[in-house]
């Protein structure tokens, strides 16, 4: 049976799809058979970030409606073995997804995969609820600013009340906090919330801190998950987060400012 992971946030633009792409790639690289599903029906993006947009034939909605089977629809990643993408439909809307339909597809994928990563759309409406409903674990992507933190808090409330595990009274979804677009310099100036501030408000386990980095945008433009950019701090931070997710102990990096050449020279 696969573990189902939902990548969610409530707020848009915080890095859910970047995280879904990086995380699924990281899990597959670690040898786990992984599929990443784009739940953002109508605003399909994951295929671009994964660099497989030219190979999309069928999509998630086709599978739910029985117009195509999973074998025809899953796109195999060209760089990493064990990694598959289930793209969203761009021409439909989120009403095309049904609870039973999603459940059936996840059930079928569960037979074959170790991890199923669900890339949730923004918001707390139907699409987001469906992405989270069957989850075993949740990665709550949060930016260090008040509106994002509040939205994440709202989503955590939903995870603990409106999902399958909550409704059946099973062990609750395991929640992980992933802080993205973190800029130590701005935290120091008081322009951004610190890791401690966010941790105190949300009170869940910290999976990782991804520094604000140009490499994220570059990676998205190139269609290469940023975790594959071993030189970049964001890529390394994602790799740490995946390792922690898989049970490894790793210290948190990138929490303080790298000093530039001049900074080091003057020791400021």
């Amino acid at each position, binding site marked *: 049976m696969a573990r189902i992971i939902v990548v969610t946030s409530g707020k848009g633009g915080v890095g859910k799809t970047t995280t879904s792409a990086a995380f699924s790639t990281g899990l597959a690289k670690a040898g786990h058979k992984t599929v990443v599903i784009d739940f953002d029906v109508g605003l399909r993006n994951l295929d671009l970030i994964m660099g497989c947009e030219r190979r999309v034939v069928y999509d998630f909605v086709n599978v739910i409606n029985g117009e195509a089977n999973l074998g025809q629809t899953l796109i195999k990643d060209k760089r990493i073995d064990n990694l598959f993408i289930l793209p969203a439909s761009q021409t439909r809307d989120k009403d095309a997804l049904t609870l039973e339909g999603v459940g059936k597809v996840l059930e079928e994928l569960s037979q074959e995969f170790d991890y199923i990563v669900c890339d949730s759309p923004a918001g707390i409406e139907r699409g987001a609820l469906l992405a989270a409903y069957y989850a075993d674990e949740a990665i709550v992507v949060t930016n260090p600013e008040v509106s994002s933190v*509040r939205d994440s808090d709202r989503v955590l409330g939903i995870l*603990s009340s409106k999902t399958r595990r909550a409704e059946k009274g099973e062990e609750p979804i395991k929640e992980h906090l992933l802080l993205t677009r973190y800029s130590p310099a701005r935290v120091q100036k008081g322009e951004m919330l610190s890791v401690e501030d966010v941790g105190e*408000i949300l*009170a869940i386990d910290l999976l990782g801190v991804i520094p604000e980095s140009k490499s994220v945008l570059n990676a998205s433009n190139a269609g290469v998950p940023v975790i594959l950019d071993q030189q970049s701090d964001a890529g390394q931070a994602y790799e740490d987060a995946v390792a922690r997710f898989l049970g490894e102990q790793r210290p948190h990096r990138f929490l303080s400012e790298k000093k530039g050449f001049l900074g080091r020279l003057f020791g400021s």
Partner: protein
Amino acid sequence: MLTLSVLHLLSSDMDRLAAHLDAKLASAPEFFRGLPVLIDFEVMAGQAVDMAALKDMLVARKLMPVGVRGVDEAQRAAAEEVGLGLLAGGSPIARREEPSQSTKPAAGAAMIVRHPVRSGQQVYARGGDLVVLSSVSPGAEVLADGHVHVYGPLRGRALAGVQGDTEARIFCQSLNAELIAIAGNYRVSEHIREEERGHPVQIFLDGDSLRIETL
């Protein structure tokens, strides 16, 4: 003049009655709470009704049965036995039961919440106190008929004595609330003084005004 809600009895089947009533009450629990009702037996002539069970069933739902009308001889005797007044048609009430103790919250009926109350969530301790062992996030709301205790940081809204109990208080370890209220007297975050913020405090009503006192 006196307005009284009338419950028209159409069946003597208590289970059916209870189910119907619950559905009705769920639509506006606060409106029906402690509402005096008159039970109308017009269509039940000649049928045996378990008067004591009926009264208990209504009292258990926080309704206050005060009397009956349209009863036959047997029903009348039964009503008298359980202390329900008799009304003939539209004539004035012959006897009225004093408001019973049924609206008082049961002692020790505290609700304990161990998990964080998150933005968008609402927790209401009906008829008693609320104890939150974790935090109350911004955008969350905790309410109680009695006292509210919050042992984590209080960052959302806290309302005590929501049924009008002016003796109710709010106790918290760290006051950062968006709004605090006791028996409808409220104060928003903007009017909480800096020196009270982030401190363990109790909040209570002093006459008409809210007082915040550091602990």
